[in-house]
């Protein structure tokens, strides 16, 4: 799962001409550390939803990579 999240985030970064990150830390902030805008977060949700059938933003904001993992594990 962690690899999949990394892959999706790197693809979003690639589309914005940003360097891929080699690994994700659970404390990484999606907006500040990974430089994702709300449009990028929307893209992230739709791709995770296709993969895991879970809408990570359904009940409020998710800020860090750790919070994404938590949502997907539940």
């Amino acid at each position, binding site marked *: 799962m962690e690899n999949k999240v990394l892959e999706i985030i790197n*693809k979003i970064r*690639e*589309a914005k001409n940003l360097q891929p990150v080699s690994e994700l830390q659970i404390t990484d902030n999606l907006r500040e550390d990974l430089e994702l805008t*709300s*449009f990028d*977060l*929307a*893209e992230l*949700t*739709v*791709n995770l939803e296709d993969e895991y059938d879970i*809408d990570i*933003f*359904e009940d409020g904001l998710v800020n860090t990579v750790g919070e994404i993992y938590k949502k997907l594990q539940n």
Partner: protein
Amino acid sequence: MAIFLIDNTREYSYEMLVDRINQHRNYYPLFKSSDLFSYFENIVKAIITNQSLVLIDSDLNPSELDDLDESKVNESVSLGEYYFSNIDQVISALKESKSEITIFTSGTTGQPKKVIHSINSLTRVVRIGEKYKNNIWAYAYNPTHMAGLQVFFQAFVNNNTLVNVFNDSRSEVYQKISKYQVTHISATPTFYRLLLPFEKSYRCVQRVTFGGEKSDNRLYENILMIFPEAKINNVYASTEAGSLFAAKGDNFQISESNKDKFKVVDDELLIHKSLLGKSESFKFEGDYYHSGDLIEWVDKGEGIFKFKSRKNELINIGGYKVNPIEVEDVINEIVGVRQSLVYGKANSVLGNILIAEVQLSGDIILSDLDIRKILKSKLQDFKIPRKIKFVDSFSLTRTGKIKRS
């Protein structure tokens, strides 16, 4: 005797049609048939004897329509005595008919709506004369809908031949164009895209008409390679109003005589009720009907305008309004893309997220990122689909437009 219809390999002359009309003096007010000749025979009989008629699709399940009595489908009604000695008499009777024809919207979205038309409103833009005399039409529309009726009447009153190509494959269409030396084609952009890519040119085709959906310049260019002798035009025909304007290129013109029958409010085209059929589903503001079509003036004084999009098609992406047609146009311009469909999907972050389904042509290899990179140089960021799905085909409505779910 002129050929009226070629369907599959069968040929029907106008003489056969007159004979059938005289021999069988009955008709079906609610006729469901997949046989095109019987279908046209029924329409013509109803019209020339001033009967009313409801047109339903051959594959329609009556439960799809609210107020349709299933037991009445294909119930025959006697027409009494009449005799037509030739096709000219039939055509004269047709032109003066007081019949009311009920048709249904195909709806790229939503439930079909019922609209009642007079023969007058259905034949408003039909042209008759020497120069229309020897036309051979590829019949590419569903015959129960407005565009199909327009082509039928145009061909019929000029004793033209109709060659049925509706729902045919690419190779079948080409084979028929060549075999029957088709001169005129009127169809949706979706139909013309089916004919790509260019392999061989067909010089017999003189006129290519686009209708129903928005097309793009690249499609025009490709079609002109296939039909190098053809003149291209657009037609605006709606179930509600029939044909209202003809056009050159992407533009349409409101005629001088109809000038007071249109208004434009907030870019939306409003049509005066006198130009419309009758329907309970129409909502009027004063005497005007909201068409839902957004337009842009090219030359207001001359009444020349172009269509931008459908009003309800705008998608709200995080507060930005996106016109999916505009995005589709840009995607369709990319070399290797045959056709695309752009739509919004509910999303908890932005309200909606933009998705594109893309059909590639032939063995072209393009990735979703390739497409997004190309779009980046042409569109603002919020208009770029965040997900691109590659598809083999699109589902079509009964009139051959791409279905927007």
